[in-house]
């Protein structure tokens, strides 16, 4: 569904990605592991058009999407749930969700919003509240709900568990599993490698802007190098 072929990208003179190749098949949950600064976030940003690839190809559903800007990529069916949740703090919960459906028109939007409220009743209770007043876990639900409002076929999650209380992490991972079970493909960057590998189908490991290892998630859980570097021995 999504293929990156030797994608390089960077900021100014810094080269953050040095020929990254990876693939995500329809219906999969794939996770991207690596230390801080390995290039995971840049990989997601390059897919969603926030960072332009300097070389290489990105193909989504048979069409080349590198070079397109972020709004166009949302229209093609990729939603990016950014690191740190990034809800709009002074917009209400409902306005945040409405912005999530910015690329769409029509009556189905209201039905989709009801569906998000049904999945996350707490958001429904707080629909008139500014998003900045929500707790971290609630903001994460809102960020996910907002991403779903664009009706994506592929969702990119960047560090969904970062900064959340343990119970909120459980809930967030549960939601991501559900999203995948309803047929949406997921590519996830996650620093909680253990939690991520337990729910993923496959995983890639990044180091210094390159993919250094990939395989089935359950194999990587038992890989000596992964254990030592990312699972705390």
């Amino acid at each position, binding site marked *: 569904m999504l293929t990156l072929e030797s994608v390089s990208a960077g900021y100014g003179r810094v080269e953050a990605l040095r020929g990254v190749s990876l693939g995500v098949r329809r219906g999969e949950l794939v996770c991207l592991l690596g230390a801080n600064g390995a290039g995971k976030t840049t990989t997601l940003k390059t897919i969603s058009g926030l960072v332009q690839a300097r070389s290489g190809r990105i193909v989504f559903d048979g069409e080349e999407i590198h070079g397109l800007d*972020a709004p166009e990529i949302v229209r093609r069916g990729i939603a990016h749930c950014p690191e740190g949740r990034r809800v709009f703090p*002074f*917009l209400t919960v409902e306005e945040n969700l409405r*912005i999530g459906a*910015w690329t769409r028109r029509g009556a189905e939007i209201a039905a989709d919003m009801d569906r998000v409220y049904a999945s996350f009743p707490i958001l429904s209770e707080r629909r008139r509240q500014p998003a900045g007043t929500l707790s971290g876990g609630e903001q994460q639900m809102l960020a996910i709900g*907002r991403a779903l409002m664009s009706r994506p076929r592929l969702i990119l999650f960047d560090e969904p568990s970062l900064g959340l209380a343990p119970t909120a992490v459980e809930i967030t991972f549960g939601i991501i599993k559900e999203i995948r079970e309803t047929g949406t493909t997921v590519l996830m960057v996650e620093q909680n490698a253990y939690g991520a590998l337990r729910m993923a189908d496959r995983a890639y490991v990044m180091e210094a802007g390159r993919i250094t290892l990939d395989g089935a998630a359950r194999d990587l859980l038992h890989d000596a190098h992964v254990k030592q570097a990312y699972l705390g021995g």
Partner: protein
Amino acid sequence: MEAFLQHLLNGLLLGGTYALLGIGLTLIFGLMNVVNFAHGEFYTLGAYLTFAAASLLRVNFVLAIAVAILGGSLLGALCERVLLRPLRGESIDTTMLVMIGLWIATQNGELLAWGGVAKSIPHPFPTAPIVIGPVSVAPLRLFVLAAVLVLIAGSHVLIHRTRLGVAMRATFQDRETAALMGIDVGGIHTLTFAFGSGLAAAAGALLGPIFLVYPSMGDLAALKAFSVVILGGLGNFAGATLGGVILGIAEELGAGYVSSGYRDAVGFVIIILVLLVRPSGLFARAGRVG
């Protein structure tokens, strides 16, 4: 008491136009991080366009004002596309210098086009004041007050109640995430600059017929707009509205009870006091925009 009510009414009228100027400036700063030193020139442009339409082309007065607002918006959009868009990502100082250049260029352009002699805009209203209880007001001023209120209310609805307004506020708050939602951030910038410039042109178009139209009239207007934005807090729509009204009323009371020569001084004394006591503005909430 009668004099007080009269000053209050005049202050409200003046303050309403200050609010129009301030809202435009504060939106442009809040969204684009551009300190628009050319803001007063859109005010001047609004006044001259009204003059051109009403006096030279003999267009209906209200239509002439609408033409001026539209003209100001279009020129604002053009400025954003030609001058500011290529400078996106540059420092705030760079865009500020470009806007200062635009200010000087347009002001001298007006001088070249219209000459230095002040023009007066003809209007269809009778000059005899309407007396309402203790206060009397010229029909033209009443019309201007009504137009200002409609424009402020309309701006409020646009920003707080429409789909476009939600996108504008989202872009204020987090440009990168707004792009991830599919919002065309560049388009929002163009629209915001056009909108702010249109409001400044509206203020010029409405005050022009009350006062006179001359090439440097925008300088004082720009100063007032900056004062309003400082009073209300940068990027704060409600603050700019209230700040404008407060400044207008304070000036009018100062002119009435102290000396009309001190009219502008009163406003600036208030600004100095606000900067000393509440440097982020009277109505500032941390990081609030929109």
